[in-house]
C-alpha cells in the first residue's frame, strides 16, 4: 500500500501535477479566473489585471534570479524596452499587435545579450551593479532617441485587436493578460523541469561544480538572460497597454525593487512562489491602506498624498522581514503548513 510521498520513475519526478487533488484545485482556479472578469467590479478587476501582468514579469525575473541565481537590479530596463518596442511597432508603424508582442519579446532579448555578454565574467554583486547601470543607460537612450521614442513625451498605446477580437474592454483585456500569464507560467515550469532548467539550478547552487559537470556556463547564463528578458519584455508591453501610455516615468526604478521583493516574498526559485509573491505584493499597499483607514480618515489622507513613498517603504519592510524571519518565502511557509497538517500531532 502506498504510504507517504515517493517516486518510482524519473518521469514521475518531473511531472507538473502529481496528485488528483492538485488537478482538481487547478481546474477550479482556472474556472474561477475565467468567470472572474464578468463577476468582479472594475475596481477589483484592475487589481486582477495588474496581478496577471506582474506575474508575467516576476516569472521572467525568476528564471534569471530564482533559477540561475544571477541578481538583476535592472529588471525595469527590460520592462521598459519591451513596452517601447510594442508601442513603436504598433502605434507608430501600425503593425499587427502580434508582431508588436513578438518585438516586445525579441528587442529586450537582444538588449539582454548586450548587457549579458560583459556580465558573464562577473558574479553576484558585480552583476547586480552592471544590470543597475544598464537600466539607467536604457532610460537615457530612450530619452535621447527622440526620432524613435518621442523622448520624454512618450507614446500612447491603444488596446489591441487581434484576429477580429477586440481587447478594448476591461474583461477582454483581462483575458489577454490571463493568456500571457498562463503561457509564461507553463514556459517557466517546463524550462525548470527540462535539461536547461536543471543546468540553471546547478549554476545557481555551485557554478564551479556545474562547470566541472560539463555545463557551458557562458551559454547557459546568456540563455537565462535571453529567456528572462523575453518574458519580462512581454510583461512590459502588457503594462504599457494597461497604462495606455508608454513613457520613462511610467516605469520607475521602484519596479526593479518590487520584482525582487516579489521573488523574496514568494520564495526564490519557485514559479508558485512568484505567483503568490505577486498577489501579496500587489495587494499589500491597498490592504494596508484599508487597515489604516479603519483607524482614522487622517491616515487615509496620508496614503493618498504619499502613496509612492508608503509603497516603497512597505516593499522595503517586507523584503527585510521576510529575509529575516521566513527566508524561504510564502512557498516555504506553505510547505511547513502542509507538512504540519499531514503529520500532526507528530513532528515528522
Amino acid at each position, binding site marked *: 500500500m502506498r504510504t507517504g510521498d515517493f517516486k518510482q520513475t524519473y518521469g514521475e519526478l518531473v511531472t507538473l501535477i502529481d496528485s488528483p487533488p492538485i488537478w482538481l484545485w487547478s481546474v477550479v482556479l482556472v474556472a474561477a479566473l475565467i468567470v472572474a472578469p464578468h463577476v468582479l467590479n472594475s475596481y477589483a478587476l484592475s487589481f486582477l489585471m495588474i496581478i496577471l501582468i506582474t506575474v508575467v514579469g516576476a516569472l521572467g525575473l525568476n528564471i534569471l534570479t530564482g533559477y540561475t541565481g544571477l541578481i538583476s537590479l535592472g529588471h525595469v530596463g527590460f520592462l521598459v524596452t519591451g513596452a517601447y518596442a510594442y508601442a513603436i511597432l504598433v502605434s507608430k508603424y501600425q503593425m499587427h499587435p502580434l508582431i508588436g508582442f513578438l518585438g516586445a519579446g525579441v528587442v529586450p532579448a537582444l538588449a539582454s545579450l548586450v548587457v549579458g555578454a560583459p556580465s558573464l565574467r562577473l558574479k*553576484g554583486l558585480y552583476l547586480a551593479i552592471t544590470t543597475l*547601470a544598464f537600466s539607467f543607460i536604457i532610460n537615457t537612450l530612450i530619452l535621447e532617441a527622440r526620432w524613435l521614442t518621442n523622448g520624454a513625451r512618450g507614446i500612447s498605446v491603444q488596446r489591441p485587436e487581434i484576429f477580429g477580437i477586440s481587447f478594448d474592454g476591461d474583461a477582454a483585456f483581462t483575458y489577454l493578460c490571463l493568456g500571457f500569464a498562463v503561457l509564461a507560467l507553463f514556459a517557466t515550469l517546463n524550462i525548470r523541469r527540462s535539461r536547461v532548467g536543471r543546468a540553471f539550478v546547478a549554476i545557481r547552487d555551485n557554478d564551479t561544480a556545474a562547470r566541472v559537470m560539463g555545463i557551458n556556463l557562458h551559454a547557459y547564463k546568456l540563455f537565462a538572460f535571453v529567456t528572462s528578458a523575453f518574458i519580462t519584455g512581454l510583461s512590459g508591453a502588457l503594462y504599457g497597454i494597461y497604462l495606455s501610455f508608454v513613457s520613462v516615468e511610467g516605469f520607475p526604478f521602484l519596479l526593479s525593487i518590487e520584482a525582487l521583493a516579489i521573488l523574496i516574498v514568494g520564495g526564490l526559485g519557485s514559479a508558485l512562489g512568484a505567483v503568490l509573491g505577486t498577489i501579496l505584493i500587489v495587494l499589500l499597499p491597498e490592504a494596508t491602506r484599508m487597515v489604516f483607514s479603519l483607524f482614522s480618515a487622517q491616515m487615509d489622507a496620508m496614503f493618498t498624498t504619499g502613496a509612492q513613498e508608503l509603497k516603497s517603504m512597505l516593499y*522595503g519592510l517586507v523584503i527585510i522581514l521576510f529575509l529575516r524571519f521566513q527566508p524561504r518565502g510564502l512557498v516555504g511557509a506553505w510547505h511547513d503548513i502542509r507538512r504540519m497538517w499531514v503529520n500532526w500531532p507528530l513532528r515528522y
Partner: protein
Amino acid sequence: MQYFTQLLISGLAIGAIYGLIAMGFAVIYKSTGLVNFAQGEMTMITAYIAWTISTTVSGNVFIVAIGAIIAAVVLGLVIERVVMRPMLGEPVFATVMVTIGLAVILRSSINFIWDAYPHGLDVGFGRTIVRIGTIGVRTGQIAVIVTLLVLLAAIWAFFRYSKVGVAMRAVAADDRTALLMGISATRVHALAWAASSVIAGIGGVFFALSYDLSPAMFQLGLKAFPATILGGLDAVLGSGLGGLLIGITENLAGGYIGSGMKEVAGFVMIIVVLMIRPFGIFGERDIERV
C-alpha cells in the same frame, strides 16, 4: 582652455564627493564583504540632519560638523545593530537584499520626516567664490577636495599602522581565523558601519553645502558606485581616487557631448571597467580555488 579648466575643477569637486561616498562603500565591503546599497540614503540622511541642526540649533560650522558626525555614527551603529547583525552568517544574496530594502525605506522616510522640497544648507561658508587667475572656485569645492585628500591619508595610515585597522583587515581577509586570534568580528563590523556612515556623511554634507538638499540626493550613492567599482570594491584608497576620475569624466562628457551623457557617463564607465578589469583598477584579483 578656460572652459576645460572650469569643467575639470568642478569635476574634481563633485568627484571628491563621489570619492568620499565610494570610500564609504569600500570600508563596509572591505570588512564585511557586502555592498551596502543603502549608502546613498545614509549619506542623504546625515546631510538632512546637518541641515536640521543648522536651522534649529546653531548655524556655526563646527557645531553643525560635530553634530553631523555624531549623527552619522549613531545612524551607522543603529543600522548595523538592528538590521545587519541578525543577518550575520546568512548568504550574501540575502544580506545585500536587506540593504536594498533598507535603502528603499530610508529613501521614502525623508518625505515623512522632512519634506519633498529642496533646501540650501547655509553655515556661512562654502558658497563664496575665490578667483584663481581667471577661474572662479567656490570655497566649499576647495574644502571638499582637501577633506578627501586628508581622509585618504588618514585612512591609509589607519589601515596600515593602527591596531584596529589591522584587525579590520584581518576580519576581511579571513573572519574565522581572525575570530581565533581574539578579534571580535561583530565589533569590527559595527566600527566599519559607523566609519563608513561618517565618511559618506561628510560627502553628503559637502554636497548640501555646494548644491542643495533634496529627496533625490540618494542618487549620489548610484553615482558613487562607478567610483567604487573603478577603484576596486575592496580598495578604500582606490575608491577615493576613482571618485575623482568619475567626477572629471562625467563633467567632461556633460560639457562636450551632451547633458544626457553626464547622467550615464559613470555607468558606461562601470561596464567598460568591469569588462576589462572585473576587480577594479586597484582591487585585488579574486582567485577561486576548487
